[in-house]
């Protein structure tokens, strides 16, 4: 299960499960936003990734995030 910002690269090398992150230097929390907001985003995306571990997939899949 990969959490990455460069999804096109992840796809091109054949990653099977992908959850997008928000940037290269800070994948899980934008320092320009308040700490609570960063944590909320991080908590949400890690949750999506954990659920993705349980997903039955047959081809490379990008999992959707809400925050």
């Amino acid at each position, binding site marked *: *299960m*990969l*959490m*990455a*910002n*460069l999804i096109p690269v*992840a796809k*091109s*090398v*054949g990653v*099977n*499960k992908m959850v997008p*992150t928000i940037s*290269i*230097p*800070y*994948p*899980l*929390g934008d*320092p320009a936003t308040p700490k609570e907001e*960063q*944590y909320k985003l*991080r*908590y949400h995306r*890690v*949750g999506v*990734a*954990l*659920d993705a*571990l*349980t*997903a*039955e*997939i*047959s*081809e490379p899949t990008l999992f959707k995030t809400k925050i």
Partner: protein
Amino acid sequence: MKKAILYLNQFFGQVGGEDMADHTPEIREGLVGPAMELDKQLGDDIQVTHTIICGDNFMGSRQEEAIDMIKDFLKDKEVDFFFAGPAFRAGRYGAACGHAGRAVQQMFPDAVVITSMDEENPGVEMFRKDMFIFRGGASAAAMRNDLKAMAQFAQKLARGEEITSAKEEGYFGRGKRKQYFLNPPVPATERVIDMLLKKINGEAYETELPVPVTDLVPVAPPVAPDKLSEATIAIVTSGGIVPVGNPDRIQSASATKWGKYDVSGMDDLKAGEYQTIHAGFDPMAANADPDVIVPLDAMRQYEKEGKIKKMFHYFYSTVGTGTTQKEAARMGREIAAELKESGVDGVLLVAT
């Protein structure tokens, strides 16, 4: 003057044909068979001092013994260059040149090992990463040309001349990247736009970063949804998060090392205790809060909620910039083996 040694099989070493393929390795002072032409092509910069001759079957079936004997022959010799072949399309000979060349390279790390094979020779794929394998002809008819290509390249190195890409020099790419300045200089921005325009116009263009053919990994079996709450989940990152001071001295680029760090009893990764040593992005945000790359705080929350049983007490880290696919694959295998052995059920790999 630099010193060189040439490795030949029984046939080119003029011992005999297939009936002599079990010929025990030997070393002869001076030039045998193709060694004469090679020595001539090498000119005044490099001298071929000895010829090693070994039967192809001897090397094939008693490889360790053959390598030990060759090493023994060379222990009191000067070896600036080690040539093998050319092996053309002869599979056994190609593999023998590769095995001999690799052993010599290990024994003499500063020596240059050069061979030549036809692209169909299985030795190419087996050894292209270990030595310079020149793109040679399919049969001995190409002997003179192949020797010339090997010799000219050796001369360039002996004179300290700049070498260019594998393709231009004529050898099979070793999977190594080399940085150099263009003359005249053309900025990357202009080169990439040129490439893009060509691509849009359907014209031929050449990428500066060929992506090796990917080997696809099958989808891992999922963690059963009702078992997630019993699962141990590990975090692995290519984002270079390490304890401040980088105790394992993981390289900031082109990494060949990884580290694992125990976070037992911690609720998040604190600034000043952890940092990123990744040289490929601005580290400010990750140094101010390492959880933006290793989300320990969120994982702890999911532990508390019972969504997962626990986060594995080590997180694993390396640096993913300039890192070769080969090294990355090796590190991945090593880390995966540890995680499997530790009973980890799932992994979140956070990339930067």
